[in-house]
């Protein structure tokens, strides 16, 4: 133990290869950074996009039809999948944080298990809603 730690080169500097290949983010860390990334995406561009679609679809019959046709475009479908994932992940991870704030699930094991649940639930919900969309 002592000899193993003595062999480590210190100090260790952050470099791009270190960030990419050597420093492994634990699962709760992934949930956290994805919560931030999905939140940022929801502010720009997805809220604007949702408002645009709501605006068009409520404006007139033609607007509603044009949004229905718009949804047929592959690029729009792809964008919607990302939108749905961002919402679902942010939603599930957010509920986890609300429980963490109440000191529920803060031990290492439950924290890791619930992190996996959040990641999988986000992807599963995206798959289900994506399938409905397609």
């Amino acid at each position, binding site marked *: 133990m002592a000899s193993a730690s003595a062999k480590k080169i210190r100090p260790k500097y952050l470099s791009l290869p270190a960030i990419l290949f050597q420093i492994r983010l634990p699962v709760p860390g992934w949930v956290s950074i994805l919560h*931030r990334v999905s*939140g*940022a995406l*929801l*502010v*720009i561009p997805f*809220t*604007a996009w949702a*408002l645009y679609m*709501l*605006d068009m*679809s*409520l*404006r*007139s*019959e033609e607007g*509603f*039809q044009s949004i229905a046709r718009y949804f047929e475009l592959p690029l729009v479908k792809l964008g919607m999948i990302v939108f749905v994932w961002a919402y679902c992940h942010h*939603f599930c991870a*957010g*509920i986890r944080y*609300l429980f963490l*704030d109440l000191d529920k699930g803060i031990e290492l094991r439950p924290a890791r298990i619930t992190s996996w649940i959040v990641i999988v639930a986000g992807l599963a919900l995206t798959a289900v809603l994506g399938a409905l969309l397609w």
Partner: protein
Amino acid sequence: MKRLVVGAHYGLRDWLAQRITAALMVVYTLFAIGVVLKHQPITHAVWQDLFSRGWMRVPTLLFAVCLAWHAWVGVRDILMDYIKPDGLRLTLQVLFVLLLAAYLGWAIQILWR
């Protein structure tokens, strides 16, 4: 010993506001899913009728207010973490406040046209 409290101490209020708005948006999300599932198939007439009703408009407006408030706390946290030059951070904060206010104005315009 008397503690000397410094700063604007808006931290707790913002933290709490972010949690409360989050919980309210969870409720709205489930409500909206329920409404959409109950009114299948959604045609333009059904859609427009839904959004002409107070029980849909008012919760949707409250959702938009929650979203803007919640997003502001999140955006501010992100800017404070990554944007170190004060002038640039302040500029971006102002721009995001304007953006979120614009989103809110747009939502109101859509709902009460």
